[in-house]
C-alpha cells in the first residue's frame, strides 16, 4: 500500500442519538404528519437512516397557524434584545453539539466529514451568532429608522448544505422578528429535525420555528398558502420561476437563490498553484453541488495546457470514498436522480465534441458516485458550458484578452458567482466591476461568512443572504404602504 493510500480513519457515528421515526415540528412539539412517511437514505451506502413524516396541506396549514400565533402573541411583542438572546442560545448549543451535527450531516447528505466538521457546521453556528447581534440593532441596518418584521415566512431549502441553508434562512428571519415555517429538502431532512430539538433545548417559544418535512407537494402547499407574508426559496431556477409566477400580484415578498454557472477566470500572471487550488475547490468542493460553483474555467489561452496538466495532477491526489472517513475529499452524489442528471449532461459533453478526462478513482459498489471530471475543448455553445450540472464536472474554455474573459464570463442567464485569478490588483478590480455576478472571489473561492452578503444577478435569483443586507428580505420600513392583495 502506498503512503497516499491512507489507512482508514473513520469518524464514529456513536455520537449520534437518532430516532427511528421523526414527526413534524409544529408549535414547539413533534407531531404526526398525515401524508405518506418516507425514508431518508445515506447516499454512500444506500442504507435507511430514519423515516420522516410527510406534511400534507392540512399539516402545512397547522404549521402556519402556529407560526402566526407565535408571531402575534409572543415574538412580535418581544424586545429585540430578548429575541437576540434566544438566537445566542441557539448558536451556543450548535457549537456544543457540533460534532454530532457534522456526523449527522455527512450521513444524510453524503459530503465528507472533513467538510461538515470544518466548514458547514462552524458556519452554521457563526450565522446564528452574527444575526443574534442584529436583533436589537435593526435601526442601524439601513432599512429605515423603525423597520418592522414581515410576519410569517415560508422557507424552502435545498439538499446541498442542509443545515447551513437552514441557518441562512432562519437566523435573519428570527433576528428581524419574523416567525418561520421551513421545509428541508426531502433527501436531507435530518439536521433540520435535530435543529428542532435544539430549539427546544434553547426554550425557544413554541411556534417561532416550525419544520415541515416533505417533497414538492409540501413545498407547493407552503408557497400557495394565503396566510404567509414572505417566501424565501433556495433551489433550482425552474422551481424559482414557478414560485415567482405563483406569487405575482400578491403582497407576499419573495427572495430566491437559484442556480449558477460560475466562471473562474485565470490570467497568465496568476499565482498559479493557488489558482489551481481555487479551481479545484470551486468545482469539486461539495462534489460540485454548489450553486456558486466555479463550473466554468476560463483560462488565458497562452497558459491553457500548463493549467490543464497541473489541474489533472492535482485531481489525482483527491480521495473519493466513504464520507465518514476523515481523509475523504470527494463524497457521494446526493441521490440517484442527481447522479442521472450529472451523467446525462456529462455525456452530452462527449456527444458535442468536448474532450473528457476523469480522475482515476475506485468507485464503491454501493451508493451514488461520480469521479472528478474535466472537459477541455469546450465551446460556449456546448450544453456543458451553459447548463448547470450541479456535479463534479468542470468545463474548460479559453480567452485571449480581459475583455473577452469578461464577455464570456457574463455570457449566461445566470449571475451568482465568479472567480478572478491575477496578481495585478488594478485588473482584478476592473474585472470585478464588469462581472455581472453577485459574489466575486479574487484569488480565492468558495469563501462564506455571515457578515458577507451572498446572492445572484439575473436568473440566479434576487435578494441577499448574509451581512446587513441579509436582513432586508425580512424587514420593511414602517413608512411603506403595502400594495397588492
Amino acid at each position, binding site marked *: 500500500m502506498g503512503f497516499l493510500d491512507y489507512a482508514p480513519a473513520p469518524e464514529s457515528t456513536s455520537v449520534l442519538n437518532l430516532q427511528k421515526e421523526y414527526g413534524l415540528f409544529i408549535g414547539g412539539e413533534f407531531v404526526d404528519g398525515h401524508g405518506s412517511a418516507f425514508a431518508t437514505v445515506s447516499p454512500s451506502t444506500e442504507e435507511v437512516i430514519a423515516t420522516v413524516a410527510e406534511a400534507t396541506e392540512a399539516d402545512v396549514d397547522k404549521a402556519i397557524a402556529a407560526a402566526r400565533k407565535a408571531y402575534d402573541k409572543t415574538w412580535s411583542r418581544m424586545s429585540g*434584545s430578548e429575541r437576540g438572546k434566544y438566537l445566542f442560545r441557539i448558536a451556543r448549543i450548535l457549537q456544543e453539539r457540533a460534532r454530532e451535527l457534522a456526523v449527522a450531516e455527512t450521513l444524510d447528505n453524503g459530503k465528507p466529514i472533513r467538510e461538515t466538521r470544518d466548514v458547514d457546521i462552524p458556519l452554521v453556528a457563526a450565522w446564528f*451568532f*452574527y444575526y*443574534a447581534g442584529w436583533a*436589537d*440593532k435593526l435601526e442601524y441596518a439601513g432599512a429605515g429608522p423603525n423597520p418592522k418584521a414581515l410576519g410569517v415566512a415560508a422557507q424552502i431549502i435545498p439538499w446541498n448544505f442542509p443545515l447551513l441553508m437552514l441557518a441562512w434562512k432562519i437566523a435573519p428571519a428570527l433576528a428581524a422578528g419574523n416567525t418561520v415555517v421551513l421545509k428541508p429538502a426531502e433527501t436531507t431532512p435530518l439536521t433540520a429535525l435535530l435543529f428542532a430539538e435544539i430549539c427546544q433545548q434553547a426554550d425557544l417559544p413554541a411556534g417561532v420555528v416550525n419544520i415541515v418535512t416533505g417533497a414538492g407537494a409540501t413545498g407547493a402547499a407552503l408557497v400557495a398558502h394565503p396566510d404567509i407574508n414572505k417566501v424565501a426559496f433556495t433551489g433550482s431556477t425552474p422551481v424559482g420561476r414557478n414560485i415567482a409566477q405563483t406569487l405575482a400580484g400578491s403582497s407576499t415578498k419573495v427572495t430566491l437563490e437559484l442556480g449558477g454557472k460560475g466562471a473562474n477566470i485565470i490570467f497568465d500572471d496568476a499565482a498559479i498553484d493557488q489558482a489551481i487550488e481555487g479551481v479545484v475547490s470551486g468545482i469539486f468542493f461539495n462534489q460540485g453541488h454548489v450553486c456558486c460553483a466555479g463550473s466554468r474555467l476560463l483560462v488565458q489561452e497562452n497558459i491553457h495546457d500548463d493549467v490543464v496538466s497541473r489541474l489533472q495532477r492535482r485531481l489525482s491526489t483527491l480521495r473519493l470514498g466513504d464520507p465518514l472517513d476523515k481523509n475523504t475529499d470527494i463524497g457521494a452524489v446526493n441521490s440517484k436522480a442527481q447522479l442521472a442528471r450529472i451523467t446525462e449532461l456529462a455525456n452530452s459533453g462527449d456527444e458535442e465534441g468536448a474532450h473528457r478526462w476523469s480522475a482515476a478513482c475506485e468507485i464503491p459498489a454501493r451508493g451514488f458516485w461520480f469521479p472528478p471530471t474535466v472537459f477541455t475543448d469546450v465551446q460556449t455553445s456546448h450544453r456543458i458550458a451553459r447548463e448547470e450540472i450541479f456535479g463534479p464536472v468542470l468545463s474548460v474554455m479559453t480567452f485571449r484578452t480581459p*475583455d473577452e474573459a469578461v464577455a464570456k464570463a457574463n455570457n449566461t442567464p445566470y449571475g451568482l458567482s465568479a472567480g478572478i485569478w491575477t496578481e495585478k490588483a488594478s485588473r482584478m478590480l*476592473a*474585472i470585478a466591476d*464588469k462581472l455581472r455576478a453577485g459574489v466575486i472571489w479574487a484569488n480565492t473561492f468558495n469563501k462564506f461568512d455571515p457578515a458577507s452578503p451572498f446572492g445572484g444577478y439575473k436568473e440566479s435569483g434576487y435578494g441577499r443572504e448574509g451581512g446587513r443586507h441579509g436582513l432586508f428580505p425580512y424587514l420593511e420600513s414602517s413608512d411603506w404602504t403595502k400594495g397588492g392583495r
Partner: protein
Amino acid sequence: MARLSIPKTYKLYIGGKFPRSESGYTFEVTTPKGEFLANAAKASRKDARDAVTAARAAQGGFAGLTAYNRGQILYRIAEVLEGRRDQFVEEIRASEGVSAQAANKQVDAAIDTWVWYSGFADKYAQVAGNGNPVAGPYFNISTPEPTGVVVALAPAGKSGESLLGLSAVLAPILTSGNTAIVLAHPTQPLSAISFAEVLATSDVPGGVVNILTGDPAPLMPWLASHADVNALDLAGGSEGDWVTWQSDAADTLKRVLAPSVGIPARSVERIVAFTELKTVWHTKALG
C-alpha cells in the same frame, strides 16, 4: 458558632495579572454609612505607566483577531458575569447601599450591555464604513479601525454605576479592538476588581483591559499626557478636573471624549468615537 469568612484582598488588574500597587499604598473602601469593606490598592503613576505598557503590548493582537472572535470574547464576558451574578449583587448592595432589587437590576443591565456590544463587533464596520463612489477609475473603500490604547474613567456617581457605568464605558471601547486602562469608581471600586476576575476567566487576553483603583486625580495628568495613549474617554469624568486633563491631552493630539451626563448603555457613537477611518484607493483598469 458561625464560620469565619475569608475576606478577599482587592488588587489592581494589569497585564492579565493582579498585582498590588508598586507603591504599596492602599485605601479603605467603606459602605456609604462608613463601615469598613476592604482595603483596595491605591494605584500610583508607575502602575499607570505599567498599565499603558501592557495595553499597548496587547493591542496589536486584540485588534488582529477576527471581529467574530472579538464578539465571542465579549459575549463570554456576559456569560461568565451571568454565572457569577450573586457575587456582584452582594458587592453592589454593600458598596452602594442599595436594595437587592436595585442591585439585581444593575447587574442585569450590565450583562445586557455586554451582550449588546458583543453583537456589534462584526457589524459596526458595516454601519460606519462603506465604499465611496469617487469620480474616477478607482476602487475606494472606507473602513473604521480601532484607534489603539484608550484611557477611560468609569463614572463616579453615588449609586447605580459601580458595575453598569464601568460596563457602559468599557464595552464600546473594546468592541472595535482597542485596549483600555480604566480608572474605577474612586469610592466604589470593588465591582471593578471583581469584574477583572470575570475578564481574567473569559478568554480576554492579558493587557486588553487594565483596571486601576484609587484616586484618579494624581494619575490622570500622567495618563492624559502619556505619548503612547491614543484616546481619552472622559465621558465618566464630570466629577474630576477634566478640563485640565483635556488640555494635557492636547499636546499629543489625543482623541478626547468630553464628559456627559449619564453614559448610554448602548451607543454606536461610543464605538465609533474610538476608531479611525481609513480610506483606501486603488486603480481599476482592464488592460
